[in-house]
């Protein structure tokens, strides 16, 4: 096409040609990725100090009961442990597979492991890769089973407010296939039942529409989108 022919094209046709040229450029570039990793140690330290990097078992349980889908729950334990029991909605992902996973940076990611050490390490890896919304399940699966699946029955001296709270947790425990357990008396060993995960095949199914929504759900994430 000669220069004269180009000049005779209308403005719109020229713009279309520019778009096609840019499209061809994109075709040549393929999938660009900016893979530079920088760590701001002060920022990370401030996050750890401010304890804004974790989700409590209560918050997570309320999200699941309410049928929230705006987060990814990652189980960092072994495949066998995952098969035995996992929190509903959780995906099993080894910490070594984190780098190649399909986790996206604009997702809210909640990590958990048996007691929390692995999840804290995975959290650091994700933060280093500029995942701004990675969270740790506080206390790991241990605290989850003690607090959500097998909540402790309050002592005789509990205040009415504590009893109301407990009624709510008991209902939630049944939702997750657990049950309240007797309080551990002073000096006695922790109740074993609280540490044993429920049997895998009878995992409760999460059904958002029929699920009772506990009051006081966790604070919502910053609203985004249109």
């Amino acid at each position: 096409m000669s220069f004269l022919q180009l000049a005779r094209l209308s403005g719109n046709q020229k713009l279309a040609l520019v778009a096609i040229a840019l499209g061809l450029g994109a075709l040549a570039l393929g999938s660009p990725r900016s893979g530079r990793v920088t760590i701001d140690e002060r920022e990370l330290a401030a996050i750890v100090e401010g304890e804004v990097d974790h989700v409590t078992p209560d918050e997570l349980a309320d999200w699941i009961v309410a049928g929230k889908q705006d987060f990814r729950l990652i189980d960092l334990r072994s495949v066998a442990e995952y098969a035995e029991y996992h929190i509903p909605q959780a995906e099993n992902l080894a910490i070594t597979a984190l780098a190649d996973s399909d986790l996206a940076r604009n997702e809210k990611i909640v990590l958990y492991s048996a007691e929390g050490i692995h999840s804290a390490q995975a959290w650091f890896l994700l933060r280093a890769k500029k995942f701004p919304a990675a969270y740790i399940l506080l206390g790991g699966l241990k605290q989850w089973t003690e607090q959500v699946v097998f909540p402790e029955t309050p002592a005789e001296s509990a205040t009415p407010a504590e009893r109301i709270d407990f009624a709510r947790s008991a209902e939630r425990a049944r939702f997750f296939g657990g049950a309240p357990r007797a309080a551990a008396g002073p000096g006695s060993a922790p109740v074993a039942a609280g540490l044993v995960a429920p049997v895998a095949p009878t995992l409760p199914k999460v059904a958002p529409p029929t699920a009772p929504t506990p009051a006081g759900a966790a604070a919502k994430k910053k609203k985004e989108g249109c």
Partner: protein
Amino acid sequence: MNAPFFKFGLFGDEVSLIVACAIGIGFGFFLEQAGFGSARKLTDQFYFKDMAVFRVMFTAIVTAMLGLFYLGAVGWVDLSLVYVTPTYLWPQIVGGLLLGVGFIVGGYCPGTSVVAMSTGKVDAVVNIVGIFVGVLVIGEAWPAIEGFANSSALGRLTLPEVFHLPMGLVVFLVVLMAVGGFWGAGVLERRFADRPAKEDQ
């Protein structure tokens, strides 16, 4: 300084509201400039008499897509942080059809009804009242429709992920689709230009 500014915490809530206000006014201004303050022009789209809506919207899509792609390629925008509306397949199909029916009946989509109202059009005011009534109805009926609204959740989906294609190839194909669409729009306009006269007889 890298975008998205809000996600990286470079903008606070207040600044982001000011930016949103500026973008909103700009959006409205260009909608009005494109003639989208007129319900007649907007509904002509559905009878293939005037494809301006298609042209303007697809041009905006291609411009934004090329801009984001190249800004991402040079590292000024972290594309993985750009918000992508999660896909809920069936609820979104039903919602899209509902919006389309409302668009044809009312003559405006939500954004253009605000544009038309600001130029004093009464039908646009009626449209906006209808939007608020609709919001109220949805809010009240939410327990009944919540199950459906949350169904077929596919999460955050993009075309390169769905088709397992390099992003650049998808960008190129969408540009071709746009240019082909613009050509096709011209063909449709020439074919349907004399339709209303016949229907009126």
